[in-house]
C-alpha cells in the first residue's frame, strides 16, 4: 500500500497526544476542572489515579486529591463533596468496586451526578486482573448510568459528555464509564485534546441548586424513611433515568456542534450493518477483533456487521430494535457471565432478548461468552460465532444454548 502522508490532524486549538485511555480520562478531568477526586489503588484503574496525580503535581489541575483508606471511603467522600457543590471523580476496578458497594447504592437516590471510571477487571477469586464486565454490571439496577468506551479518544470525549449529562438537572444521576483493563487502560494511542475554551463552551459549571448543602440553603439529606415514602423516591429515580434518554441525545448533538466530531448515534456504533445478514453485538474493545474479522469475512462474501453498544444504562432498546430488525441473525458476545440466567447467557444477550420481545420481527439470537479474565478474543472465535449465526439464520431458530468461545475444552 502506498504511503499516505497525513496532514497534521490537530486543528490549531487542539493538540495531539500519545496517551492511554486512562491518561485520556485525566486530560478530560483537567479540562472539566474537577474539584475533588479520591483515590485508592487497584489495577487497572490505578493508572487513572496516577495520571490525575501527575496533572496536579505538574500544576495543570488544581483539585483536592484525597487518598482514601479503601474504596468504601473513596466513594463516600466524593458523594459528600458533590452535595456541597464540588465536581467530583472517583474510580475503581473489580473487587475494589465491589467493596464500595454500600456507597455506590446510595449515590443515585441522593442524586449525586458524579463520574466514576471502572477499569474493568475480573472479580476474585482467582486473583486476576484481566478484563471482565461483571464488576461494572453490579450497579446496573441501581440508578447508575453505565456506558462502555472503546478508544482513548472516546475515553476523553465521553468523560466530558458524561459530566454534561450527569449534571443536567433533569438527570442528576451518577455515571460509571467502563474501560476494558489492558486493552484500553494500558494502551497509548494518538488522541486529540481540545482547548479549555472549547470545553467551557460545552460544559457549564456544576449547579446543584436547591439540593446543595449550604448554610444559606438549610436542608437535610437522606432522612430515614418508611413504606410511606420509599416507592415514591424510587419512582423519582425511574423518571430521572427515563429523562436521561433525551439529555444524552442533546449532549452528543451539542458535542458535535462544538468539537466537530463524535457519533451521531450516541447509543451504539454500527459498523458495516447496512446490508448485514448477521449482526454481532459487543461492548468495549472487543470491537477491534470483531471489525478486523468482519473485513476478512466480507472479503469472502459474508455480510457481517457489528453493533457496539456504548450505553447500557439507560438501555437503548427502541433504537436497538429498529437497528436489529433487518438482520437475519443476531450474535451477542458477552464479556461477562450471569450463572443460572435464562439460557445461561451473558447479561447483554438477555437484555437484547428482552428488548426484542415486543418487536414485530425477531431474528434468531445466539448468545456467546468470550474473553473472560482478559483472554484475547481471536479472529477465529469471531468467525466461528458468525458461522453459528449463519446456521441459525438458515434454520430461522434461535439456539437455546450459550456458546463459550476461547475456553480450553
Amino acid at each position: 500500500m502506498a504511503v499516505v502522508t497525513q496532514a497534521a490532524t490537530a486543528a490549531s486549538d487542539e493538540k495531539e497526544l500519545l496517551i492511554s485511555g486512562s491518561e485520556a480520562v485525566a486530560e478530560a478531568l483537567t479540562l472539566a476542572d474537577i474539584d475533588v477526586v479520591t483515590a485508592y489503588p487497584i489495577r487497572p484503574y490505578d493508572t487513572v489515579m496516577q495520571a490525575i496525580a501527575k496533572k496536579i503535581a505538574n500544576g495543570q489541575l488544581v483539585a483536592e486529591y484525597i487518598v482514601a483508606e479503601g474504596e468504601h471511603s473513596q466513594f463516600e467522600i466524593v458523594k459528600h463533596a458533590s452535595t456541597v457543590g464540588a465536581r467530583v471523580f472517583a474510580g475503581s476496578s473489580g473487587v475494589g468496586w465491589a467493596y464500595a458497594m454500600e456507597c455506590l447504592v446510595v449515590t443515585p437516590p441522593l442524586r449525586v451526578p458524579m463520574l466514576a471510571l471502572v477499569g474493568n477487571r475480573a472479580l476474585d477469586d482467582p486473583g486476576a486482573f484481566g478484563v471482565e464486565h461483571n464488576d461494572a454490571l453490579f450497579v446496573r439496577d441501581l440508578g447508575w448510568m453505565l456506558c462502555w468506551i472503546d478508544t482513548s479518544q472516546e475515553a476523553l470525549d465521553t468523560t466530558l459528555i458524561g459530566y454534561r449529562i450527569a449534571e443536567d438537572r433533569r438527570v442528576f444521576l451518577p455515571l460509571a464509564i467502563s474501560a476494558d483493563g489492558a486493552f484500553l487502560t494500558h494502551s497509548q494511542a494518538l488522541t486529540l485534546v481540545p482547548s479549555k475554551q472549547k470545553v467551557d463552551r460545552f460544559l457549564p459549571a456544576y449547579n446543584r441548586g436547591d439540593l446543595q448543602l449550604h448554610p444559606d440553603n438549610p436542608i437535610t439529606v437522606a432522612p430515614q424513611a418508611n413504606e410511606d415514602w420509599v416507592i415514591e423516591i424510587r419512582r423519582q429515580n425511574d423518571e430521572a433515568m427515563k429523562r436521561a434518554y433525551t439529555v444524552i441525545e442533546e449532549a452528543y448533538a451539542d458535542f458535535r456542534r462544538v468539537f466537530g466530531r463524535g457519533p451521531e448515534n450516541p447509543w451504539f456504533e454500527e459498523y458495516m450493518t447496512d446490508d448485514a445478514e448477521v449482526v454481532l453485538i459487543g461492548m468495549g474493545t472487543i470491537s477491534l477483533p470483531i471489525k478486523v474479522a468482519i473485513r476478512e469475512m466480507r472479503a469472502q462474501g459474508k455480510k457481517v456487521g457489528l453493533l457496539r453498544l456504548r450505553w447500557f444504562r439507560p438501555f437503548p432498546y427502541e433504537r436497538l430494535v429498529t437497528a436489529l430488525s433487518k438482520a437475519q441473525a443476531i450474535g451477542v458476545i458477552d464479556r461477562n457471565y450471569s450463572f443460572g440466567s435464562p439460557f445461561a447467557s451473558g447479561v447483554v444477550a438477555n437484555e437484547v432478548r428482552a428488548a426484542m420481545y415486543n418487536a414485530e420481527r425477531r431474528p434468531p439470537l445466539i448468545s456467546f461468552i468470550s474473553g473472560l479474565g482478559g483472554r484475547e478474543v481471536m479472529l477465529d472465535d469471531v468467525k466461528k460465532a458468525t458461522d453459528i449465526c449463519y446456521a441459525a439464520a438458515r434454520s430461522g431458530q434461535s439456539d437455546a444454548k450459550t456458546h463459550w468461545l476461547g475456553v480450553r475444552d
Partner: protein
Amino acid sequence: MASLIAEIVYRGIFQKNLAARVARGIVLSARKSGRWGIAFGRYGDSPQRNGIPAKDFAIVADTKEELEQNMARYEPKHTDVTIVLDDTLAKGVESWAWYGLQPINKLTVPNGTVLMTSLQSFDSLIEDVHKREEPYTLALIRAKASFSGLWVYREDHTEVRVLGALAKIAPQFLPLDGVCQAIQEIDWGSDLKVASAKKAHDRLESRVVKITEGNAEAPFAFEKPKWWEMREGVTIPAIPIGKPKEGGEGYVPDRNPYFKKYTTRTMRPVIDFDTCVKCNLCWISCPDSCFDVMPDGTFDANMEACCGCGVCEAVCPVEQCVTMVNESLFEDNASQWEMWRKDQAAYKTWLVTKIGDKQGTLRSHGFRFRGQYEQELAAGDLDSGGGVITAGIPGENAAHKTQ
C-alpha cells in the same frame, strides 16, 4: 501491508521506564512522517517486580485501518524487530503468563532483526540465543544494559540510541530525520540526545544469524489443562515434598515444573564449597528456596530455581564464599556442586576466573546508593555514544510537561 511491529523485551522495575520511552519514541517518530501508531505493555507481565522479563510493544502503520489490522491481536504473533534491552535476556524469557520459556527470537519474523544492547561479541551472544528455522539479523548497540529503578532514571541515552539504531534498521517507517525531530520535541529529549541517536545510527553493528547457529536446547514447554480437567474451587495441588540426595543424606525440594523463574536472573551466585561453614543462612534466607542441601552439608544454588536476587551473597558470613556474577558469563544451568565434586582443582580455577572478572561482578541491579550515578559519570562508565553526559539532564525539556 505497510506496518512495523516492534517488541521491547526488558527487565521489570530496572527498565520499565526505559522500555516505555522506547515504545513511545517509536510511535512519535513514525508520526513525524504521518503514520499512525500505538504503544502498550503486555498486561500479563508483572513489570513491578525486580528483573522479571517483560514486554512492551509498538506498532506503526501507514493508515488507521492497517493499524487496527495489526492490533486485532493484543499480543502480536510476530514482530519485525525484537528490541532487547539487556543481553542476559538472550537466553530466553519466561513471562509471568504461562508460556514456558520463550526464545528471545521467537516472535521475530524470518529475516527480521533482533536489536540488543551488549558489550559481548556476536559469537558469544549467538551461543545464548535459541536456534531457529529461519535466519534473522542480530544488531548490536555497544552499551551495557541500562538499569535504574521505578523512581530514578539513568540518563545514559540508551532510549535514543535504540531509536537511532531503529532508523537504520527500518528507515522506511522511522526515517532518521523523523526520529531526530521526535527526540527534540519529546519531554525527555534534547539536542545532545539527537546527537547520540545519530551516532548510534551510524555505528550500528549487525550480522546475519544462520539457521545452523545458536543454542540447540529445546525450551521447556507444557500443555495447559482443559477446563474439565482442572480441580474445582480454584484449587491446585501442592508441590510434593522433596527427597534426600544419595544415601539418604541432604535434601532436594520438589519444584514447580511449569514455572521456573530463572530468566529473571541477571546475576547468579557462584559458591566456594571449600570455604562454606554450613551455617544454613543462604538456605534459610533464599526467597525462592533455590538451595539444595548436599550430602556433605554444603548448599548448591539450583540454577533452575534461582532468580538472582543476591540475598545469599548478602547474608553469607564468609568472604567470597557466595559471589554474584553476571549471567552472561555462563552457558548453562548445571550444578556447581557436581562440578566441584568431579574435580575440585578444576572447580577452583573456574571459580577464581568467574569471581575475578571485574566487569562480571559489577552489580547489575539499579542504583543502590545516593550519588552512585555521579560516581559512574565521573568514572566514565557510561557510554552515550554521543557527547558528554552530565547529571541533571532530565530537566532540559521539562517545560514540555506543563504545556
